[in-house]
């Protein structure tokens, strides 16, 4: 599914922010990524969802060597990844419905093919009444739920979430985690970056820890079974 080998990354001409990263995520796995602020969690996620290039090393995604892929192939790889951005990245001139449908529309799907799914998902994340709302009118937690719905709407093979429960109440946090678990059960590989150690421990999923740009070997789950 995902293989990172001897990977280094830097922004522009700055120092390396990721050092010698080696990581393999098996299809259908569920991992948490933790580490202090500035440790490199977001940078690592950006590399995985193809928003950044590595300065050295190799990224293999769904069996494709990213460095060898054309722009069109990279776009097709991105369609297989769902991302929940830490800063949401909702488009404020589009309605909640249109924001969630964005990956499907970008992939060339027609509205009649996805309308029902989007409406159902909106209802599931508890935003059925906000379907035509502008994201500016939503609270932080509601925005986060819209961002999550957008990330999962295309049933991605790899779901990446950067602090997905950071702005929601514990009850909604648990509900959203259940959504990730459900997607994982349906076959999606899930990687969640989180500061919420309580949530991480409660999940029982393997934990990847990053510190000063260096990734330590995954710690096994503390709790038996899947999260």
């Amino acid at each position, binding site marked *: 599914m995902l293989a990172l080998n001897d990977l280094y990354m830097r922004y522009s001409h700055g120092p390396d922010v990721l050092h010698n990263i080696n990581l393999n995520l098996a299809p259908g796995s569920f991992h948490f990524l933790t580490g202090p602020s500035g440790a490199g969690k977001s940078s690592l996620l950006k590399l995985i969802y193809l928003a950044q290039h590595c300065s050295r090393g190799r990224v293999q995604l769904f069996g494709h060597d990213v460095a060898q892929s054309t*722009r069109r192939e990279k776009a097709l790889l991105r369609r297989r990844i769902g991302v929940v951005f830490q800063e949401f990245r909702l488009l404020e001139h*589009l309605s909640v419905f249109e924001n969630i449908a964005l990956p499907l529309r*970008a992939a060339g799907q027609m509205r009649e093919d996805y309308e029902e799914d989007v409406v159902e998902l909106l209802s599931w994340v508890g935003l059925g009444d906000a379907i035509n709302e502008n994201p500016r009118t939503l609270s932080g937690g509601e925005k986060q739920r819209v961002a999550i719905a957008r990330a999962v709407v295309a049933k991605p093979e790899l779901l990446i979430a950067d602090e997905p429960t950071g702005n929601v109440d514990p009850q909604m946090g648990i509900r959203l985690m259940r959504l990730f678990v459900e997607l994982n059960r349906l076959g999606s590989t899930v990687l969640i970056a989180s500061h919420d150690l309580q949530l991480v421990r409660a999940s029982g999923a393997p934990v990847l820890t990053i510190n000063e740009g260096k990734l330590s070997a995954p710690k096994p789950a503390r709790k038996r079974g899947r999260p």
Partner: protein
Amino acid sequence: MTMPAPVPTPNSMLPLRSKQDGALFFVIAIIVFLACVSALITRATFVSAANWRADLNGAMTVQIKNAKDQDTKVARAAQVLRSIAGVSEVIVYDRTHATALLEPWLGKGNIPDDLPLPVIIAVQLTPQAPASKDVITFALRASDIRAEVDDHRRWSAEMNSATGFLQVFSLTALALLVSTAIAVTGFATRANLAARREVVNTLHLAGAFDGFIAAQFERRFGAMGFRAGIAGAALAALIVGAAQLMAGDGSGLLLPVFRLDPVGFGLLVLAPVLTAFSGALTARLTVLSNLKEQD
């Protein structure tokens, strides 16, 4: 509780309006206006130059100076000229005409009968196979008529030089305006793209192809170019129409004829279409190049 139905999907994934749109619309409309006026001037220059050349090249003047039996000589000369192959029409401007031409300066009745005046014969040539100056001169000499034949060559050379300069000048102005329009659209697209970086990045990371993202900007700038093109062309039509009314019928004597005929009208109709096409193409190329730079 029933959920509200989602509102219809907008065509563009870009915000409908941005702060720069008004200023950009105005700039494009003005450039289109200038380009339209410049195109009409260019066309008028070409048409007038062609007419002037045809007038000069298709005619000669035969001058018979005052001499004994001038009237007889003129009548004979006209007869000889009419018999030459390649001459389509011969018009004699006799003493009466010459007197009429002088009267405004000398006053009516102030031209003495014995004042020597030359007689001019205008010779219109057949456009397909015009008679040459040498043929006409030889034919007149053969009939023992001393006359000066002028084929306007000196005037033609000067006219060609002047109209050539005018044509190059107007074409250069037109090319500069069109280049400016393209450069402005490109610059505006880049500014718009910078303002819409968030939209572009989100679409990019959602797996949209470059062409899909470029199409959003292409539609936006194509539509704006069309609207601004209509405004600019309409303004040009208004100004040219007014100029045509004010100039009246005598304007074409020395200056290029600046009028809104079917071809001129066609140019104005074409302007918004070309502006839309140019705007869309420039936006597309700018976005594609910008996306490649980003990666």
